[in-house]
């Protein structure tokens, strides 16, 4: 993706977001009392203003993209294994989603251990034994600090409870 294409995506995205906000999200999800006399003081005024400005910025991005160099120089460093990289992104998204779902059932400590190990192996660590040790020690140390020093009620889950 070169700079022009990136700016095209951003411009189109900003315009689409603006239209979505103006015609659907703001009218449906922002409530305003019926007795507001002045439009400037309405809870709707600020969101509509910001949505309008976002649309204008999107148009600006589309208009000024012709000023950018037309070469094919990529915006980010190229990567050799793009399909695998995309797959890794899907996996890290799944790890995050899994963490959210598991946290209340397994507890934060066990979830964090699984998260650490899964991420370390996902990025192909060259220190697998150290990764396993860290996956156990770091969440436990953080639990000890937050639960016993800072007094935070770390979720314990339904399986194994820590002191």
């Amino acid at each position, binding site marked *: 993706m070169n700079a022009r294409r990136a700016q095209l995506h951003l411009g189109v995205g900003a315009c689409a977001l603006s239209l979505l906000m103006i015609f659907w999200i703001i009218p449906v999800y922002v409530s305003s009392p019926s007795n507001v006399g002045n439009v400037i003081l309405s*809870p709707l005024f600020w969101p509509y203003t910001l949505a309008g400005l976002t649309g204008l910025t999107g148009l600006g991005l589309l208009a000024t993209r012709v000023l950018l160099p037309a070469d094919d120089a990529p915006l980010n460093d190229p990567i050799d294994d793009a399909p695998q990289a995309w797959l890794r992104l899907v996996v890290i998204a799944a790890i995050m989603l899994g963490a959210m779902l598991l946290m209340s059932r397994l507890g934060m400590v066990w979830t964090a251990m699984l998260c650490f190990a899964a991420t370390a192996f996902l990025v192909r660590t060259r220190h697998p034994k150290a990764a396993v040790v860290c996956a156990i020690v770091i969440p436990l140390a953080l639990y000890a600090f937050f639960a016993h020093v800072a007094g935070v009620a770390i979720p314990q889950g339904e399986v194994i409870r820590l002191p």
Partner: protein
Amino acid sequence: MSFLDSILAGLTVVGNIEAFLALGIGVTIGVIGGAIPGMSATMAVALTLPFTFSMQPITGILLLLGVYKGGIFGGSIPAILIKTPGTPASSATILDGYPMAEKGEAGRALGMALWASCTADVVSNLSLILFAGWLASFALSFGPPEFFTLILFSLTIIAGVSGDSLLKGALSALLGLMLATIGLDLVYGTNRFTFGDPNLMGGLNFIAVLIGLFAIPEVIAMVWHPTAHVGKARSLGKNWVSFADYRRSFRSIIRGSLIGVFLGSIPGIGAAPSAFLSYSEARRRSKYKENFGKGEVEGVAASEAGNNGVAGATLIPLLALGVPGDVITAIIIGAFMIHGLQPGPMMFILNVDIIYGLFIGLIVSSVFLFFIGSVAIKGFKYVADVPRRLLVPGVLVLCIYGVFAVNNNIFDVGVMFAMGWVGYVMMRYQVPAAPFLIAFILGPLLEDNFRQSMLMSGSDPSILLRGPITWFFWTVTVITIVAIIRAGFRATRRKPVADKG
């Protein structure tokens, strides 16, 4: 209250072992965090923030300030030894620092970086002490229209100079402002974008948004490209910085410190432009200008003075006006809020002990930085050897604990992950994240001051032009926009010529 009374009040809150211990630990964490390639001072401050929740306000804030100061210096260590700046502000240090390392003078370059950093730090802290109180007493006369125009100016300059394009910066700031509207309306108390979820009624948690924007994208970027190259560390060499080197570079150090103070006190500019400006001024005026870029110790001194000169000065708008000057001070403002403190002119009246306690702590931090920095230079090898592919999962786990600890709410962890993906997309499209975060913090303040102004004037917009202060801020806002647009056009015109050449 006299100046001496204020100092004594400050001493009563920081005159204890915990405060100085926090400061020392903070500087150590900052130097290590700044020195680890792939971490940054910003990430170090963000990840330290959750650990301050259970501390006394002054202790927690001193810990964060220590991390900030240490992080800015720490960034210069990998810049010199492996040509990888630990923070964006250290980029200018590479220009002469790395050639010195190649010549076997890394120890001399790092020593000068440390001496220049500590000197600039002292100058910057003194400016903070001199100007913050004066600015705060001036700001006491600000009403909602003045604050509205000040915040608008800050956002304009942050959006304009944070990235390579004003429009991308503006888009980032607008998205931040939009996100800040989530929650109950400030005047009528009606729902805005809460989607029926009670978790959203108080708005999005600031810490979740900030950690999501600044730490999680680094985790995702590592997953995308796990084998990103890290350079090989150079040895320190036998030469060490001498007092003669320091004396030779002294003018550049002081000039760089003053440039840092000036640019740092303007919200939004930050340390990187200051370091480059200080470097170019030193090169222009130096007797040894032909050596710049080839390993000139004065070049290292100038760039380090420029970037450290900013560190104390960015706290001037933060403490005096309640407006964060950059991302790190935006995080520090979060620490103030968590401890029930609201930075701004009233803090100089209501919490004078904390203000002067911070001043004392900042002065002491320069001394800590000198000693801890000296040790860190020699211990960098061990820091550089920390495997990044173990560091990144550790960061992820720390983020989960830290964000949860703010409100004991798993929902915030979800917000952090979602913001992480937003931050990653912004990173890929080179949209700066700083305007987003600062707009998110200042958004409610901007809207609140705008609506208060309208209520005061019966919806007459001319109140936003009511006096010299508002005129001043409107003028500098317009000048900033024009200057940024002109600079953008010039850069795009120059590029094709350079490409042809």
